[in-house]
């Protein structure tokens, strides 16, 4: 009988599998990049009109290019982080297939995260990076490339963990409802709005912005994009932002784990 020791190899094996699986769907990535480009054109004209009707050059403290960069990269981050975990969990719970994942000799949540992690790597390289370069050249180098890139990458990673925990939390609801479609749509609207992915948080009215700042969602899109685009930040600010983000990550991990643990008791795994 093989004794199972802690080994990082098993996590890498899952990531590797995800990368390989991701690579076999390469066409979908080209389509995503084209989609992002179309989105870029749409919001270019939309926000051009908004800025044209504004008396000053900046709205909410952001220039036209700032807004453009922010929104396109938010869309790219959305593609990066959207793992279809909720959808998949809902389907697996309905079909009963989730039992196969529950019976792996690993913690279910960790297993699912690493199973998805390869997909993150792939979509980072195949869609986020090209979109980033596209935006960089489109806006004629308005993004500062420096130490902020490093903080940005770290921030994306933490954002991914927070997003994953929210997905896991929502996916767990499927254990009770046996259907996930509507809940998923609602979650997406709430997260995209409150995280500042559809409209930059800088444009929010003061009160709403205060409320949103106390919610975890802004840590998903606003924090990394803020780190990337705001050139006035200094090291102290970066650490403060990352620290806050990390705090949210820990809270969300704890929260989703507790909910999952509690919900396991109601599992009735369908089919048979």
């Amino acid at each position: 009988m093989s004794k199972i020791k802690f080994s990082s190899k098993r996590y890498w094996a899952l990531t590797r599998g995800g990368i390989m699986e991701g690579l076999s769907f390469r066409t979908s990535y080209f389509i995503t990049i084209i989609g992002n480009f179309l989105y870029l054109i749409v919001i270019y004209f939309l926000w051009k009109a908004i800025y044209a009707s504004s008396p000053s050059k900046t709205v909410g403290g952001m220039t036209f290019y700032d807004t453009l960069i922010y929104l396109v990269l938010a869309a790219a981050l959305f593609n990066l982080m959207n793992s279809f975990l909720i959808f998949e969990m809902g389907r697996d719970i309905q079909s009963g297939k989730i039992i196969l994942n529950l019976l792996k000799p690993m913690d279910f949540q960790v297993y699912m995260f690493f199973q998805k992690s390869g997909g993150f790597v792939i979509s980072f390289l195949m869609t986020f990076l090209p979109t980033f370069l596209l935006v960089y050249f489109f806006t004629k180098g308005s993004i500062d490339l420096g130490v902020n890139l490093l903080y940005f990458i770290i921030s994306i990673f933490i954002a991914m963990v927070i997003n994953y925990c929210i997905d896991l939390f929502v996916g767990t609801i499927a254990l009770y409802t046996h259907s996930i479609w509507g809940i998923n749509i609602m979650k997406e609207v709430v997260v995209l709005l409150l995280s500042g992915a559809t409209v930059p948080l800088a444009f929010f009215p003061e009160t709403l912005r205060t409320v949103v700042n106390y919610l975890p969602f802004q840590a998903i899109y606003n924090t990394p994009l803020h780190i990337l685009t705001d050139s006035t930040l200094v090291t102290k600010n970066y650490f403060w932002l990352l620290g806050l983000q990390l705090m949210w990550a820990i809270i969300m991990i704890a929260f989703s784990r507790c909910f999952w643990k509690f919900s396991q008791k109601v599992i009735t795994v369908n089919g048979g």
Partner: protein
Amino acid sequence: MDTCIIFASIQPKGNGEKLKPIIQIENISKEFKVLNRREGLKGTICDLFSKDYRVLRAVNNITMDIQPGEIVGYLGPNGAGKSTTIKMMTGVLEPTSGKILVNGRIPYKNRTKNAENIGVVFGQRTQLWWALPAIESFRILKDIYCIDDITYKNNLEYFDALVGSSELSHKTVRQMSLGQRTLCDILAAFLHNPSVVFLDEPTIGLDVSMKGKIRELIKTLNKEKNTTVILTTHDMGDVDALCKRIVIIDKGNMIYDNTIENLRTYFGAYRTIKLMFSKEANGYSKDGLDQIATDLKDVLRTNFIKAVSLTVTVEDEWIVLLINEDEVSMMQVINCVQEYKKIIDMKLEEISTESVIKKIYEGEIG
């Protein structure tokens, strides 16, 4: 319903010492709370706010011990509670009451730990990575279960020798036929040398030759690796080929736990008589045969009032009589049939496992 329960103390014969069971189940029950659903659109809307639950007892007070290296056929009609029991043994479900030990551990309390030593195959669901060749899934499993290089290599070579899997495992799972995929799933379940493997309808939807191949594979792996196998199936061919011991449950209750031979002796007085009344290939249409069967049944029932368990069915061009010789002798029946209609051809057979199980499911025993 008064069902006769046929329990016998099962002790491994031969060796005097009793082996320590690998799976111990004591009086387990599982209850589900289900919503009483109402009919129609209005009822469905009302259900949204309903708190009208009823308790469904899926498994009722089951006790059994399974010894290392056994292949146990776990049978029962659809909805009998088989899968629920398996889910409790794997630790996905917690029993409402009773005690389960697998490898000396309580499965639902140590699900992850328990998972290290068990393998599972659920027919028509795959644990393999859909878009990758099966060998990649094996590699991932190797790392997840921390299988050492030598064991892994030996197992793959062994599998290849058994079913020629090395060529197959380089095929993308998505492009495999159901049979090939099931074969790979079974290999995946045995890859980490688990002590218990649960096979839930592994041969469902497979063709005859693939069924044979999979049975052979399970049999060999069980023998060579001394793996305990719990098999649920609706295919009596699987049972005949693999299981020495069978456990039958119905409506959550255990109704049989003994060897398959014992089951046959229990039904030893049963005989199958196959009759043909016309030589021409299409002498009678299907409807014609059904008509004869119905008439014949009436005739026999009126003649032999005591023969309560007598059945008449149609199988291809044969009329099949199943009789219990304790109730009526075979010769009497044949004489009676002979007077009713001229017999052209006749076959006598012992009762098949399938008919026995069918009788048990239908509650006709005792």
